[in-house]
């Protein structure tokens, strides 16, 4: 269903920005991995210890982006649209 209030400037811009934060973070992590592939030890392991295989900065960035998007951003956008829908000042 088309949501007229979701098209008002403030929620539309805020929604786009909030929904873009997670994917932008994931893209940043992937670009970092491409620029510095030696930071991703899993790509070419040579008997490294546990920590070198478990904690790899570009992958951490990707995981944070995914976690933020699914655990925070999507629910936040729902609440933002709901709040704007119920706010008389927005009508």
């Amino acid at each position, binding site marked *: 269903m088309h949501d007229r209030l979701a098209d008002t400037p403030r929620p539309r811009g805020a929604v786009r920005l*909030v929904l873009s*934060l997670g994917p932008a973070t994931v893209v940043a992590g992937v670009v970092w991995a491409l620029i510095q592939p030696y930071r991703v030890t899993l790509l070419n392991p040579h008997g490294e210890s546990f920590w070198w295989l478990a*904690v790899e900065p570009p992958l*951490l*960035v990707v995981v*944070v982006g995914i976690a*933020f998007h699914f655990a*925070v951003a999507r*629910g936040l956008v729902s609440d933002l649209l709901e709040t704007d829908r119920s706010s008389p000042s927005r009508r």
Partner: protein
Amino acid sequence: MRPPAEHVHWLFAAGFLFLGLCLLARAVVGVEVWDVRARRAYLWPGLLFAMGLAMWPVMVFFTNSAIHMLAHGSWAQALMLAGAAHLGLARGKLTSAYWRLTLPFAMVVSGTALLIHEQNGWLWSRSAFVHHAAGWTVIVGALFPLLATFLPRRSTLHVGFALTVLVLAVIIFSTRDVAPVFGHLSSDAGTSRR
């Protein structure tokens, strides 16, 4: 099984990155919308408190020197104080807005700890530079929550604080135990890593 120091930095950087994203989203949508869900209202102060807790094992297991222990210990206490105060504010147990001053206080303590526990010259190695850059970033960035305590409706201050945390995450992600910075590495530093 103790992680190398740089891995600990990267794990904290991931925490700061998540915290920064949450703070930026909170600044964009407004505190009222962010606090609609209780779990979200508790999220960032809870994360701050947890990072303060995580600083204790760092203090215990990375005893390079007395100044390292003192810096990490004071840092842990300041982060936990700020996290606990903001949890109290979110829960409604604390009502005075001045409890928000615990955040700039924690940032000044953290920044000072970053500066004093890595006393080598700025260009001695990347680790030394990163600690100094992070220290000054946090100290200057403390102005945002300080001013926001008195001007809570000014959204630019909340955005500035969020960006400070995100910049801090980027700085900490760039740390290596032994690596050059701006093409320079002291000959006493050891074998360089990329």
